[in-house]
């Protein structure tokens, strides 16, 4: 899977199926502080990601 983080960096992670929450907490990211898309679509934190999914993580912007 290709994982794009809020700071703009992209990393390749293995395609074993896991929940978004597990993927995020594995990267020290609190799921409440981000929004995640899989292949361009918004998904909840208990959705499963795997294989060649393109995952993007957006920071919940603070303020205003």
């Amino acid at each position, binding site marked *: 899977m290709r994982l794009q983080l809020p700071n703009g960096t992209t990393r390749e992670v293995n395609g074993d199926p896991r929940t978004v929450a597990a993927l995020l907490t594995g990267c020290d990211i*609190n799921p*409440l502080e981000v*929004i995640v898309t899989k292949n361009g*679509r918004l998904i909840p934190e*208990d*959705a499963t990601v*795997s294989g060649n999914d393109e995952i993007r993580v957006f920071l919940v*912007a603070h*303020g*205003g």
Partner: protein
Amino acid sequence: MNPVSAGAGERETIPYCDNCDDPAVYFDPRLQRHLCEVHLSQDVERRVIDRLARHGMIHDGDRIAIGLSGGKDSSVLLSILSRVIRERWDAELIAITVDEGIAGYREETIQSAVSLTKRLGISHHIVSFQSLFGTTLDFLLTAHPLRACTACGILRKKALSDAARDISADSIATGHNLSDAAQSVLMNYLRGDFERLLRDSSRREDRGFIRRIKPLLDVHEKEITLYSMVNGITGMLPECPYATTAFRAEVRTLQAGIEYHYPGASLRIIEGQESLSKQAKKTVRPGTVGYCASCGDPCSGHVCQACGLLQNLNK
């Protein structure tokens, strides 16, 4: 976000909405439920309407000033209020944007505020620190050793209430959300600031303050962000460059961590503060109320916080 319908394989990996057959975009850990774009939006709007009604925040004939920074919270608030008020109340909404003078950040958010008010047909006033106080926040902070968010908060509050008074507003609506409110309670605890902790800002109109309403107080920051994304209200906006240095940033991480491990904790933090404040009111005598010797605003000291701050800078 474009609503793309789920393919057959996706059904197994993306949970359904609890209320319809669409894929969920959000899992609410406190109520253990899944919501799609449409039902998340409806749920957020329902919570706003409930709060407005429960606290009698809006009356027919009201002129409501809304503090519109152009960020996601105030933009979502304006978007929801403009619709809800049209449907239920005979009240007027006027947006006020305060330009603190923060280079590289404000330009974009003000542009976003301008295009949103145009789109919604809401009248919009922009006031600046430069014209009100004769200086920008950027300049203030380079010239004086101030805590950015504290100084900015005091001056922004003054700018907003002065602008609201100029348009004879009956109330000022701001985009504070559930996460913000829980963080503020925690910050007051951690600073040992019990005066601020026990203060009840919603009931101060009798002292000459313009009533402040916070209709998003039952909505988490993440829910507001999702609402903004699925309804196309704001794009990706920059964050305030001063925000990361603040004490609040640390408390935010703390609050998000607690909420994640104990869903509903933020709500309980706020409810605890509310009952504490209610209890305290029975035993604590209200402080003496006077008026600022410099600007005439109601305040508890000789001068208000904003005038005090500005006078100190000129010494």
